[in-house]
């Protein structure tokens, strides 16, 4: 299956159709965008902590620039970090390896999807440099602000922004073709549906949910672009249009989207907690059923983002019911994950620390969602920092904690070397502790009524108190510490790719198929197509000497 091919630099690194290379391209692009998005957070948080003082490395932050920073921070983190890393990087890298295939089913389409994605990132970055500046209407881009340049004052920026978003959507629709068809049709002989590792299931389900939810927003993106450039009035009440229509189109996608990124994160965590507790997943099928339930229900909760935004108040009651109830399947999934630890032999390796931190932190994010799903309480909490703290307690575990878990876990496979465990632990604590010190103050600020997307609170006497300002400074300083600690990760990651201790095929003694390939796997992955004899989580099987049982080992082996 694998073939020795002499490939030029261009072919190997820039024009590759190999799923592993494409996965790396998505990973590094996502990481680069994360640096940009993180820098934006640094700048706007410095403005909040020390209003109207020039920010080192940026300068004075004007109100317009503040809006552009928060808008693009949010857009970048969701569309150009979370999605490419969780779905496209891990999905591309892992799916063929974990199902025993030599590549994705449509490699050239795969390459095309990355190229469109890269184009979308470049279009977004271009929007920062055009006349009028980058779009500043929030990542939610509600019209008429986003539709008319006389309101947004960023004519070019606004159109480039929505174009970048639309291109990103197309890239992921195309990418999804590969994830779903490869997982369905290219599984190794013997790998039945319920022998597929959870992370593969999760990425496939996420791709399907993305496809089923993004269409209306693609239509909406066309409508917004036409409103911006051609003068149509889809969202303009003066021309018979309706601003609230955009909100429905946006959130019908926007809500399932958060589960689209949650699912791969949960998948990564499942792979890690089983390996490092040497335990079978407690209720593999339960995890799948709760995932389906959450996924389906997530299509019926969207207007909880719009409770007070002008929808018929009676509709809010429907959405508060569905929103509060979605906590049931998610809670069950979390319970099942935690139950997996029972009776285990837990090793607190760096990947395991991250995976456990995901569970502990996501729990806080999840429960605080109930304050917002309860419509009566959301009247107060809407557009406050309480919302912001809630979604960072869900998004940071998803897009950062679970990603570090996955990167530190699969690094030996990807690069054939180990990262430093010491630096890994230092980085872990240097991220987790400051993370909590950024966002717990923000819950408090939100409860005190602090509203969002405001460049300075000096004009609001109830919010301009010394006590509240101290909380803002605490959050900002903690962010600076957290961002600084990421240097440890970057050093550890890049220096280990060449200088780390050489890794064997299966350093973690895991069961799934990627660990049977060389570290790193060659083009074509496996010398011969593996056959599969059991599920992915047969750890500590009674009567066996080894506490793991790789999926491709025939049953007679003892």
């Amino acid at each position: 299956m694998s073939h020795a091919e002499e490939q030029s630099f261009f072919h190997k690194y820039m024009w590759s159709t190999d799923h592993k290379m494409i996965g790396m391209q998505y990973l590094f692009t996502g990481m680069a965008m994360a640096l940009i998005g993180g820098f934006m957070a640094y700048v706007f948080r410095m403005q909040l902590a020390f209003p109207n003082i020039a920010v080192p490395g940026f300068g004075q932050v004007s109100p317009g620039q503040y809006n552009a920073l928060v808008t693009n921070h949010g857009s970048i983190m969701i569309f150009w970090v979370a999605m490419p890393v969780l779905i496209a990087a891990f999905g591309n890298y892992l799916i063929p390896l974990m199902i025993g295939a030599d590549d994705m089913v449509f490699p050239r389409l795969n390459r095309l999807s990355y190229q469109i994605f890269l184009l979308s990132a470049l279009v977004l970055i271009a929007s920062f440099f055009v006349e009028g500046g980058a779009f500043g209407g929030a990542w939610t881009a509600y019209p008429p602000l986003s539709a008319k340049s006389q309101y947004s004052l960023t004519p070019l920026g606004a159109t480039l922004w929505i174009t970048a978003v639309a291109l990103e959507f197309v890239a992921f629709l195309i990418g999804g073709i590969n994830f779903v068809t490869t997982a369905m049709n290219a599984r190794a002989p013997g790998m039945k549906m319920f022998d597929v590792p959870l992370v593969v299931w999760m990425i496939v389900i996420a791709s399907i949910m993305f496809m089923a939810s993004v269409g209306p927003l693609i239509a909406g993106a066309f409508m917004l672009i036409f409103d911006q450039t051609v003068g149509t009035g889809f969202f303009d009440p003066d021309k018979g249009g309706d601003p609230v229509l955009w909100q429905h189109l946006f959130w019908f996608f926007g809500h399932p989207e958060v589960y689209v990124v949650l699912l791969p994160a949960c998948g990564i965590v499942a792979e890690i907690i089983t390996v490092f507790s040497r335990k079978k997943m407690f209720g593999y099928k339960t995890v799948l059923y709760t995932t389906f339930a959450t996924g389906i229900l997530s299509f019926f909760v969207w207007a909880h983002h719009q409770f007070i935004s002008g929808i018929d108040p009676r509709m809010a009651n429907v959405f508060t019911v569905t929103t509060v109830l979605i906590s049931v399947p998610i809670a069950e999934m979390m319970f099942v994950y935690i139950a997996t630890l029972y009776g285990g032999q837990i090793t607190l390796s760096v990947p395991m620390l991250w995976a456990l931190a995901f569970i502990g932190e996501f729990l806080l994010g999840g429960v605080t969602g109930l304050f917002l799903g309860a419509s009566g309480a959301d009247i107060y909490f809407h557009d406050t920092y309480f919302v912001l703290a809630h979604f960072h307690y869900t998004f940071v575990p998803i897009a950062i904690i679970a990603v570090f878990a996955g990167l530190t876990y699969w690094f030996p496979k990807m690069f054939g070397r180990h990262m430093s465990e010491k630096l890994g632990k230092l980085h872990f604590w240097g991220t987790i502790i400051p993370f909590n010190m950024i966002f717990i103050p923000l819950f408090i600020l939100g409860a005190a009524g602090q509203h969002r997307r405001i460049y300075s609170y000096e004009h609001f006497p109830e919010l301009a108190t010394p006590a509240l300002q101290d909380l803002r400074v605490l959050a900002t300083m903690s962010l600076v510490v957290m961002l600084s600690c990421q240097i440890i990760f970057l050093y550890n990651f890049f220096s280990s790719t060449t200088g780390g201790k050489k890794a064997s095929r299966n350093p973690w003694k895991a069961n799934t198929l990627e660990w049977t390939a060389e570290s790193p796997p060659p083009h074509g992955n496996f010398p011969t197509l593996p056959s599969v004899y059991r599920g992915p989580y047969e750890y500590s099987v009674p009567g066996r000497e080894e506490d793991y049982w790789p999926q491709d080992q025939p049953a007679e082996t003892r």
Partner: protein
Amino acid sequence: MKPVATSRSVTGIPTGRLAVWWVVASEIVIFGGLLGSYIMHRLGHPEFGDYASHTNTAAGAFNTLVLLSSSLSVVLAHHAAENKDGKKAFRYLWLTILGGLTFLLVKSHEWSTEISHGYTITTNAFWSFYYTAAGLHGLHVIGGMVIMAIISFEARKGRNLQRVELIGLYWHFVDLVWIFLFPLLYIAK
């Protein structure tokens, strides 16, 4: 070199067919969103009925017939491909492409007439939806025609005959969208 993965089919369904179903499903959600938005607007704006009376129902009906016939010819192309008759498939595919071309010509005539009467995309929300929905559909017709042409040349040489069915599936979807567009934009007055 194609990977082994491309040729496998654990589910028994050809991978190409799965891929086309995926594409069709994504497009259904896109058009569904657009048409859903139109319907919501329409329900809240009864005057849309008056605006819609200026569309050319006869042209729309003719175009519906054209597309339905072209779906028939693509079925015949598929049938020929199943019988390994690449040359026949080629002829029926081009009949389908001709249908698409006819559709587009009639549509350009409609649009130029409407624009010359002052009904442009910015006239009001009805016309914005009209041109956007029909325009997006038209783009999909053009895209389908191009892909169909490429597949036809391969088929004539007896290569990749399984793709005739796949472009046929896509073409049926394009037809189906029009079946919804026609009553919504033309008939509901």
